[in-house]
């Protein structure tokens, strides 16, 4: 960098504070643009959102967007009748996708071998909330909030949920007996 010529110009103020002097240079133009530009932006932004209320508020925006998401979900929901889910459970692609989701989302409560833990065993023939594929899907959809099972479909989506059901069903056979269990006593990790 070339040394800037010492601007010992007339703008140096005479007063000195403990030896400190001050130039009285004018403010850079770009700085003035920044200052007045940001003030102007405030006025325009305020007018747009708060004065004329053209811009939507945060809650209006999110409610509108969530409506679109609901619509998209309804439009793209997979078929979740018993026959389709059983068919999916025999399809390697669905089962492997379901296994991956299970490993991140379900394993902490239901165990790595589906043997149960905080939540019930999913490989035996005992079912609390119904053992048909549609029952499994409904449990995922609504959750069992009182027992700590969250409603997963809204979180992971209908597609992944159906895949998880397919993965669970892959441990069972179509037509095997479904026994009713009253409740699950949590097995707690040590």
């Amino acid at each position, binding site marked *: *960098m070339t*040394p*800037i010529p010492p601007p010992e110009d007339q703008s140096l103020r005479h*007063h000195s*504070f*403990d*030896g*400190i*002097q*001050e*130039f*009285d*240079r*004018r*403010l*850079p133009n770009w*700085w003035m643009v*920044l*200052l007045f530009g*940001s*003030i102007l*932006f*405030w006025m325009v*932004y*305020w007018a747009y*959102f*708060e*004065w004329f209320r053209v811009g939507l*508020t*945060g*809650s209006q*925006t*999110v409610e509108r*967007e*969530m409506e679109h*998401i609901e619509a*998209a*979900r309804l439009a*793209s929901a997979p078929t979740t009748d018993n026959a389709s889910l059983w068919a999916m459970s025999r399809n390697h692609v669905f089962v492997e996708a379901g296994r991956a989701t299970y490993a*991140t*989302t379900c*394993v*902490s*409560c239901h165990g790595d071998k589906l043997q149960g833990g*905080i939540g019930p065993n999913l490989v035996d023939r005992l079912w609390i909330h119904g053992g048909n594929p549609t029952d499994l899907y409904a449990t995922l959809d609504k959750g069992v*909030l*009182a*027992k*700590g099972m*969250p409603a997963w479909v*809204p*979180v*992971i*989506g209908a*597609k*992944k949920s159906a895949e998880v059901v397919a993965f669970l069903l892959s441990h069972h056979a179509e037509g095997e007996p479904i026994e009713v269990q009253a409740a699950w006593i*949590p097995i*707690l*990790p*040590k």
Partner: protein
Amino acid sequence: MSDKKITIEFNDKVVRQFLLASVIWGAVGMLVGVIIAAQLRYWQLNLDVPWLTFGRIRPLHTNAVIFAFVGNMMFAGVYYSTQRLVKARLASDFLSQLHFWGWQLIIVAAAITLPLGFSRGKEYGELIWPINIAVTLIWVVFAVNFFWTLARRREPTLYVGIWFYIATIITVAMLYIVNHLSIPTSLLHSYPLFGGVQDALVQWWYGHNAVAFFLTTPILGIMYYFVPKAAERPVYSYRMSVIHFWSLVFVYIWAGPHHLLNTALPDWLQTLGMTFSLMLWAPSWAGMLNGLLTIRGAWDKLRTEPVLKFFAVAVTFYGMSTFEGPLLSIKAVSALGHYTDWIIGHVHSGTLGWNGFMAAGMIYWLLPRLWNKPLHSVPLANLHFWLGTVGILLYTAAMWTSGITQGVMLNATTEGGTVLAYPNFLETVTTIRPMMMMRLIGGGLYLVGWFLLIYNLWKTVAGAQAVNGTIEVFDDAGDITADEKLSLMGTFLSPPVAFSVLGVGFACAWMFGNDVLSIAGLVSLMLCVVAAYAHFESRGKKWASWWDRLLVNSAPFTILVVIAVAAGGLVQIIPTVLMHRAANVEDRRQFPYTPLELAGRDIYVSEGCYNCHSQMIRTLVPDVLRYGDYSRLGESIYDHPFQWGSKRTGPDLARVGSKYPNIWHYRHMENPRSISAGSIMPNYPWLLTKATDIAALPGKISVQRMLGVPYPAWSPAEVFANVDAQAKAIADDLRAAGTSVAPDREIVALIAYLQKLGKFETVAPAKSSAR
């Protein structure tokens, strides 16, 4: 003027005391910072010890570096420079010593109470009420000592550094007192006066301006003294000092709500917070320009003089973080960066870069002068500089990467935007763990640099003779003539003040008035700006001569500063306090906590859970997809203090109630990894064994009633019966799930509280009120 010269000896003893205190507390504060950074990377380092757990010692870190490190550094710099700038010894040796020892006592009290879990639960405002009172009193001592010194000055005109000191003293007092208003329930515990959204607004009005007026304005004042001294160059532009001082102190105050963007805070406040933050960019950069361009004439000295190197990098970081701040205040950027490490990184480029390096530069400059001995080792100081610089760069780079990565992951959706790409929060935490390591290394290097400073200081000071500066001055040099005196009328009825007050008034009429008033306000604002411009162009001399007179009248100057800094707070806080009360809430209102839940909430606050968990689902799709419906203003209206949080190291908890069974929480608090493999949350085993403080509840509830929470007029016996019933139900449920715990343990109260989160009643929509 008499021709009798007198010799003044400055009180440099107190400067030396504050300087040493700053160096020592700085090491402590930074060390705690490195420890908590290590705890984030290695949760085992929480050691299962209550007083070493992250939630309790993170407040220790923030309070120590702000109030102990920068505080003491500021007092040293202010006292050293003020005496010389006004040519007077500090007014009172007694007050100076009281200030010093009082402040150290406060720090010790903070260092004991915070790890023990005594906390008000508000960031940088955690200290309990007896300490709050002590802080206020000592601050008053500081103010008296300072203004008394000004009154005895032998230099009539106030230098720009002094302007910033005045603004600091006034504004910190105002912020601190308002944000610490609370009603005690015992010697060690209190509830803040404000609740919910009011408390949120007041807290961030304080929190943001603690950064502004504790970490920025006093250091700018210090910059205006020490940078030209070290560079031996005149300040770049006086005109810029004037404009940047007034615009900075006026605008800063309005920007607090940028900490609450996209939350339940009313939209008009969010808009003010965002737009005023953008308006801060230019004033802040003027400070940077004045610092950097002052050094510009002395680039050659940068090679040999570590002091100037520290200053140059400090001012550069000031410029960088004051650009980043407005950027992060844009709502869309905040949607990505808020609650992530980006914010922590932003703060640290300010504190490590600006505050830490200004401190180091000042200390290296002062040491030889205060002890009359050359610095022990310049190479060591250079090494400190490089270690520190690399440390900051590693730290901020890690935090940018970490914050943006996590923000992008948390906001990512899949399947046509209908589903979160990473529904498991933990996955996003696991991804950024390498960055936690890099941050630890960066912070560690910075700390090593600081230890080099301590060693250098030790070698310099050991055996050296402390010296006090002296000056010869005409005794009556500070006297001003009668026509230089400014009356109150003369202060206000001056063109700059009149136009400014009118302009702000008209702007407020435009923003908050009804249709006609609003348009009238806008038109008047335009006319006012034009008139001010015309007046300045034609009668500029009048403005200049008034300003020159103001600078020799410290009291009118101070009054104008008070008005400038009070405006923003008044406009934002008063309507919020009047309007947003439980009675006016629309849509939803939270149920008041049962006594047991209240006890659990106090445990939540005491353990510092808010340091890692928010309770605020923003009006953003990814937040709603992840945590449920967005949080309404009424859902925290009884929360004294509010617990919206500012960082999500763990997930949001606003609607965690009923999401998991009691046993889940029990196991999770005992060992989070038994539930969530890979979690970095500390274990809280002591909650399982410690008894809840039930006896305090009747007193606490009566304070809550005073604050407007609708509790019935329970007798203590009724409170205890209520607690027993709920605690027993939870203990029974836990027993059914296979765990036996006494109902009076803290875990039971905490579970009761957690299960309550997100419970609300629907309120019939009232007539829509004015904003």
